[in-house]
């Protein structure tokens, strides 16, 4: 008791084994960097901010690697750090989440497009024709961040509702309602553009 483990042969083995675990952790975390960046990029408005955020995330992750439980979802663990850092940084002040009532139907954008161009605009190629890459990126950036975060995690990060709830530290029911509203806001923005 009280003696440092490294004084014992067992202790030395443990240190070596911990070093290997740490290397493995770092390798696995780095392998996810591109996926982490994709989410970060849509959380913030510029590429530079996204790069900073990802670097800060990895710096913290590498420092606190021992609080990660092997076998659990490492990508979600990294995104949890990233989300907390993003909140700590004090995001740009945004207007209150849009309180205006939304369209009654999920099919709003589809129906708007049909009104302007007939049923065939719902074909996959036509969707792509009508909605430019810029319009999607801009529409996403316009959504208040509480809603956007959930849309980005689920639609771009491909996280489950449960993972998104854990990452954002909110109940799953809140994930679902924000996701629903976020997607409707996105579609309302896209509709403005698509039917012009």
């Amino acid at each position: 008791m009280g003696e440092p483990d490294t004084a014992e042969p067992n202790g030395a083995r443990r240190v070596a084994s911990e070093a290997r675990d740490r290397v493995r952790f770092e390798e696995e975390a780095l392998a996810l960097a591109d996926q982490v960046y994709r989410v970060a990029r849509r959380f913030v408005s510029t590429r530079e901010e996204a790069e900073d955020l990802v670097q800060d995330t990895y710096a913290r992750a590498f420092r606190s690697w021992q609080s990660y439980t092997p076998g659990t979802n490492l990508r979600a663990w990294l995104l949890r750090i990233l989300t907390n850092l993003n909140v700590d940084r004090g995001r740009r002040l945004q207007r209150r989440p849009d309180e205006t009532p939304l369209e009654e139907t999920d099919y709003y954008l589809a129906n708007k497009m049909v009104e302007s161009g007939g049923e065939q605009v719902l074909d996959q190629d036509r969707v792509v024709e009508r909605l430019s890459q810029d319009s999607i990126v801009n529409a996403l950036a316009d959504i208040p961040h509480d809603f956007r975060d959930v849309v980005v995690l689920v639609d771009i990060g491909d996280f489950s509702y449960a993972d998104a709830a854990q990452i954002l530290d909110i109940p799953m029911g809140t994930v679902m309602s924000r996701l629903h509203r976020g997607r409707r806001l996105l579609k309302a923005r896209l509709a403005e553009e698509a039917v012009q």
Partner: protein
Amino acid sequence: MSDGDCGKCERLLQGYLDRELTTQEVVEAEQHLNGCDYCRRRYRFEESLRVYVRTTAAERMPPGLMEKLAQLRSTDPGAAPL
């Protein structure tokens, strides 16, 4: 199909696309989709929209960032081979 069924199908649509429905709900959604051209077209539209959002909004990591991240490592990968 009655409007009521379309309304219910639409409520299930998001969870269906996200693969978050219970088995029972999946059965209900699919039964309706199989018999309703209106919902089926809109379901396909929602699906392609989602794929399109995912692909257009996903930006690859800029060159050089990986090197910067690797420099943040505390370990030297060569020092403790796996």
